């Protein structure tokens, strides 16, 4: 195995409380009274995503696409950029939607999203990433797991950069932190730094 070296948090995006933060700076915010579906819709417009497929996605994928598009904008990354995602509630919201529909007619376009890793597929498609994917379910944001696993991928050459983070959604409450990890940057990719970026918007 290769000797481990230091990697950097090249960029990070936090989505919480109707706000988008890049590193620790608020770059976009909405009225706190805005409904979640409206927030997803308005964010798409504001960020000028111009990606009609977005409207077909479930909310978890929409959050992932919003986060990834800000995270990867103007960044250099190769097609072997790995995706290492985690959350607590898996695909909870869309699971409930599918469950409710079982009384009547089931929608394939809903059912297909009842797996948390579909968002990895959506991001891979949009950014043409043919890379390592994993979706972990954790009790709470767990920087140890993300750093250990991502470093393992980088050190063993399975990826040259990694998008890792937390993409949580339950009952329309969301909590997102995505980081681009590579050889470039100033903030070392450590558990402490990851934790700090996460805590920053949690008071």
């Amino acid at each position, binding site marked *: 195995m290769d000797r481990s070296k230091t990697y950097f948090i090249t960029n990070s995006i936090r989505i919480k409380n109707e706000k988008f933060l890049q590193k620790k700076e608020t770059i976009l915010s909405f009225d706190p009274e805005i409904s979640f579906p409206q927030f997803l819709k308005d964010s798409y417009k504001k960020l000028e995503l111009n990606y*009609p497929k977005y*409207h*077909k996605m479930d909310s978890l994928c929409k959050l992932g696409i919003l986060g990834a598009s800000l995270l990867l904008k103007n960044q250099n990354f190769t097609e072997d950029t790995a995706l290492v995602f985690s959350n607590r509630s898996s695909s909870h919201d869309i699971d409930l939607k599918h469950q409710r529909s079982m009384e009547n*007619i089931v*929608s*394939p*376009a809903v059912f297909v999203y009842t797996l948390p890793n579909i968002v990895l597929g959506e991001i891979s498609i949009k950014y043409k990433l043919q890379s390592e994917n994993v979706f972990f379910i954790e009790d709470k944001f767990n920087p140890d797991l993300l750093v250990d696993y991502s470093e393992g991928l980088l050190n063993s050459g399975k990826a040259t950069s990694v998008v890792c983070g937390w993409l949580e959604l339950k009952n329309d409450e969301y909590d997102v932190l995505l980081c681009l990890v590579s050889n470039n940057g100033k903030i070392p990719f450590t558990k402490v730094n990851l934790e700090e970026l996460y805590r920053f918007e949690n008071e």
Partner: protein
Amino acid sequence: MSDLRTELKQSIIEQLNLEELSIEEIDNDDSLFGDGLGLDSIDALELIVLLEKDYGIKLTDPNQGKEIFISINKMAEYIESHRTK
């Protein structure tokens, strides 16, 4: 007759979440898949659901869809002769 076509366009836009498309932009002969509206395999399955829900038509063989979901005109023709509601 043209009402059914307009109704179909409206429900396709809603059902398949084609938010950035309006009824006026869909021509009755536009192909639904490929270069036309660019629908995919999940959309095809959703159209099967739409036929069942709105018109009481149950397709059991997914291959049947290929001959029906060609254009709005083709779909409307099929619905007119097979609808149970």
